[in-house]
């Protein structure tokens, strides 16, 4: 898949932020949670207004479980395709994760073993999903507190592997990458280096909290310097990339949110201007 037409700094659309987002002069794009949209009936009015303003919409899902041992459920794919059509999404994003197994729902995105078995299953699941969805699919790296034992390859190799076996693009979450640097000593440079620009759909940044020596990707706390530094490095490597802020809970005052958005824009600009300087040399 070639690059999507996303650009600028966007934000995850949430009901609690609808008014704030409505007042933003020019959001680059918004991301809507598929599981939070009403199952039927009208699309929320503020989302329709954003579409009328020409703000691109991306649909973000958490319940497909593309890394599950089972192939994605055709009913879930149908539902997701319909949601994408309802909101006029130009792209659907999901996670490199599994969410259920053995009849239990975990309630969150769980990391995948980095094994040939898991990569084979994941790639096949992604191909099935792509065949059923009406718009391009982007895959996101997740954050975790633990890792599977006996990894056969690195996180960068997992991302490169799934990109080479499918036509999906990557949604790189630099906060999740930051979490893995702190929690698992993941090689951030290797991850940043494995993403070709034309396969990068967009980037997530979000806040989190460090507790008992572990970084928790909460989307409910302020943005840390770490993810912003990774964003800057990514932009230095690839130039301006579409990026968005995720906030899901404990919504801060509008001024705080606005200042986080401008911190994101600043990190992006700093990286991109070094990229430009490098290109001129």
């Amino acid at each position: 898949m070639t690059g999507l037409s996303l650009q600028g700094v966007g934000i995850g659309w949430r009901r609690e932020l609808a008014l704030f987002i409505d007042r933003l002069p020019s959001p680059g794009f918004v991301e809507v949670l598929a599981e939070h949209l009403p199952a039927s009936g009208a699309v929320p009015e503020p989302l329709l207004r954003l579409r009328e303003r020409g703000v691109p919409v991306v649909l973000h899902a958490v319940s497909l479980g593309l890394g599950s041992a089972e192939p994605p459920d055709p009913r879930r794919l149908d539902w997701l395709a319909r949601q994408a059509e309802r909101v006029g999404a130009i792209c659907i994003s999901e996670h490199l994760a599994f969410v259920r197994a053995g009849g239990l729902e975990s309630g969150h995105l769980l990391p995948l073993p980095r094994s040939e078995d898991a990569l084979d299953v994941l790639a096949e699941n992604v191909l099935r999903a792509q065949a059923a969805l009406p718009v391009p699919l982007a895959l996101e790296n997740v954050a975790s507190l633990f890792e599977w034992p006996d990894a056969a390859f690195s996180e960068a190799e997992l991302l490169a592997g799934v990109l080479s076996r499918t036509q999906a693009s990557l949604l790189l979450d630099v906060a999740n990458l930051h979490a893995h640097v702190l929690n698992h000593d993941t090689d951030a440079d290797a991850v940043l280096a494995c993403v070709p620009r034309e396969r990068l759909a967009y980037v997530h940044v979000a806040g989190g909290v460090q507790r008992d020596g572990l970084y928790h990707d909460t989307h409910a706390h302020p943005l840390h310097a770490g993810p912003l530094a990774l964003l800057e490095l990514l932009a230095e490597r690839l130039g301006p990339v579409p990026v968005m802020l995720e906030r899901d809970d404990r919504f801060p005052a509008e001024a705080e949110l606005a200042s986080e958005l401008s911190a994101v824009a600043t990190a992006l600009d700093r990286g991109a201007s070094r990229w430009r300087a490098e290109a001129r040399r």
Partner: protein
Amino acid sequence: MSARERLAQAQAELVQALGVGAPVPSGFDPARVLAAAQSLIHKRRRGVERAWPPLAAALGTDFAVRFEHWARTHPMAVEPDALADGRRFAASLQQEGRLPAEVSGVLLDFDARWRLTSEGERAPRRGVWLVVRRDDTTRRLQVALRLPGGRVWRWVPKVRAP
């Protein structure tokens, strides 16, 4: 065994450890898996707290302890849904006689709008639906009536201060 079968078994063992406290599969760092289990239950509790503010408020500091205790023995078997999860939790409180009286109004409201399927999924009611029950604490009758179109008319006598 195929790749899918091997993966299914490994994932199921991990989810059992995370969800219902089954033994941590070998090779994993048990402390990290425990931290993840705690974080999952925290997320689930926060979801119910946001979906059922009156329930969380009425239980006060007991809410976290009671919910987490209940959640550990009641894993989610269907799509996570904080509204349904909170309703099931309220039902367990009611069985134990610990449901705060202030919550009966919102429960009545919920029950007039939704039903829980045998699998535990939340399904909307249609047409006219009447809920009549006697409150455990006040012994007064409470009534909620769902009208076609979805409006709910509710009659719950105020709890008198003791």
